[in-house]
């Protein structure tokens, strides 16, 4: 379908999937073959080791987002799909970033100050560099990166977003 640029939305989708080989490939393959966007994807085992939970951040026209959810549900190894953004329920999302920044001279104190402001942690120290760990939502991570840029960021690694609904509601298998 041809869509104009406006009306593009960004959604966070939570999935429960079979924890077995090839499942990631199926999901990644679906996104690439249908030309869907993936902004981030994170995955890890749940309390039940046979099930993994995935969080995908994607964007598109509402009809495309609807298709993405349906296409994900169609995969045999996908057990449950919830478009957290579309449910209208409130959810908490967090991402972690590790930054290796220059820590010589003035930059050393500045990097420490910024880390402090963002309630991050310095997890590795060398005479030349710090490795800083910061956790937060997208806005916070972005702000921290912007402020650390003048110090000189040598490396940046992000986990991708993880998300969970607020309150007692939770994602169940059946």
């Amino acid at each position, binding site marked *: 379908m041809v869509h104009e640029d406006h009306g593009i939305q960004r959604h966070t989708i939570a999935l429960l999937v079979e924890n077995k080989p090839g499942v990631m*490939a199926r999901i990644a393959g679906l996104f690439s073959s249908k030309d869907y966007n993936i902004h981030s994807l994170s995955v890890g085992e749940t309390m039940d080791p046979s099930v993994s939970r995935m969080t995908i951040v994607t964007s598109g026209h509402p009809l495309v987002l609807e298709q993405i959810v349906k296409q994900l549900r*169609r995969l045999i*190894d996908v057990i449950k799909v919830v478009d957290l953004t579309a449910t209208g329920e409130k959810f908490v999302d967090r991402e972690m970033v590790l930054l290796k920044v220059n820590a010589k001279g003035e930059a050393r104190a500045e990097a420490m100050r910024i880390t402090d402001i963002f309630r991050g942690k310095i997890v590795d120290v060398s005479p030349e560099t710090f490795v800083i760990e910061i956790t937060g939502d997208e806005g916070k991570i972005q702000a921290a990166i912007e402020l650390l840029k003048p110090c000189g960021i040598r490396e940046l690694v992000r986990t991708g977003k993880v998300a969970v609904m607020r309150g007692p509601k939770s994602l169940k298998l059946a």
Partner: protein
Amino acid sequence: MAKLKGYQIFWECLLKEGVDLVFGYPGGAVINIYDELVNYPQIRHVLTRHEQGAVHAADGYARSTGRPGVAIVTSGPGATNTVTGIATAYMDSSPVVVFTGQVPTILIGNDAFQEADIVGITRPCTKHNFLVKSTKDLARTIREAFYIATTGRPGPVLVDIPKDVIVGEAEFEYPEKVHIRGYHPSTRGHPQQIRKAAQLMARAKRPIIYAGGGVIIAGAHQELRQLAELTHTPVTLTLMGLGGFPGDHPLFLGMLGMHGTYVANMAISHCDLIVAIGARFDDRVTGKLDAFATRARDEREGGLGIIHIDVDPTSISKNVKVNVPIVGDAGNILSQMLEFLKEMDVDWEGQHRDWLARLKEWDSQHPLQYTYSEKVIKPQYVIEKLYEVTQGEAVITTEVGQNQMWAALFYRYKRPRQFITSGGLGTMGFGFPAAIGAQLGNPEALVIDIAGDGSFQMNIQELATVAQYDIPVKVLILNNGFLGMVRQWQELFFDRKYSQTDISVQPDFVKVAEAYGIKGYRIEDPKDVEPFLKSLVKMKEAVIVDVVVDREECVFPMVPAGAAVSNMLLDRPATEKNGEELKRLLPLNFPS
């Protein structure tokens, strides 16, 4: 519990699934399975001459019988040769289960001899696929493979079995029930939605039923007919839907879309309500999307929108926004809808009288036609006569291109599973092996592959299969020495520059047939067509017929790719100037 070898478990599972016919091609990775085959006389194995042929044959068997088709091939090239067959089955939702041998698990990823990552390769063109890691998982996996292939929206499933799993040992127990926690195909439609659909139908003044292959797969043809007759609603079918509604029924408008009839395309463009059943608004059906069914979709023009019944939620609102989506089995949903409709007090006949009269007028303005010639055989004439001579009873398979469109337009299909064609993928070379599968699935039927000279050569090696097993299929090659459909596009839109479409350097098909010990005939004179076809349908053996037809005949009507479906070419542009005008008008910069 008995301990069995993997290769025994394999055949035991097939027996449990009720399989009595498989197509295949042996090789190193599956040699133990083949060795064991001799102990299973209940299962007939048909050796094709190419793995692609095996999958198409299994597909033809599946489409013509409704039962799953099975193919067995070896690892590496055996497996990769199945890909076109699998993709063909996938696009047309055909239940085919393909078993591939694989190198031993310890060698996987090692670039071993005849190793290919077939699970990776076929991931996007199977409904699901499996790599079996241990002999103890084999039975459950096969059970799940058949279950997934045949339920919901059917599709091909591939099971990749490494050699050590085949020769390994495990306790054999065939699972009674299948439980796959991520797979719950919906069958019953939402009653509220069904009621809403019935109410919309009761309001419509110019409704149309647009049905596709889903009707055939669901076995919903009776319900479809009842719906049309009860509500006096005309029916158009997609290519895949042909046979889902009787081709000679007064409410039938013919096929719609790129090569649809004038009346069907006008009807879909002017209707106020579309009832889509088991169809997916393919680009070959809708043409230019913005211009598709504009009246039905425009509320200000009194449009009531689109009702869409489909078992696959992803088919709904994929290309065209739908007003009343109903997910589930078409047969189930239509019977529920009929209940609602029967209770309604509507004068259906009176309400649709004007509409049906208008359709009749369109049909008489531009019926399907061609110009008969006494000098050269017109391909349409061959199909028309074939329809008469076979009294519309033959099972027809087709290749892809002009032969396919003529077979779709000029033969009228009475019942489901009578017309077998590669609609979605458009695979040349499909029809001949598919005819083999259809014939073996329907031993009493007259099975005819309507072929082109290009397509037939793509799986011509299956002549040996036909010869070996005395499979009495008939092949009618509409031989124009061209890749006809591409030539047609070149004629109409590319200044008759016939770039690489002249294939008149070709074998003598009669001699080729004879070389395989099969009867071959050639007909060149229009007056021989009818008498020959009359004798052909009585022949009990395989026959290859080289029908030499008009080299430059075109399929009409034609909606140029990317144009609105109401924008049909009904004949060749009369003059060069008209041709120029045509090119200016049509958005040919659209991709095919």
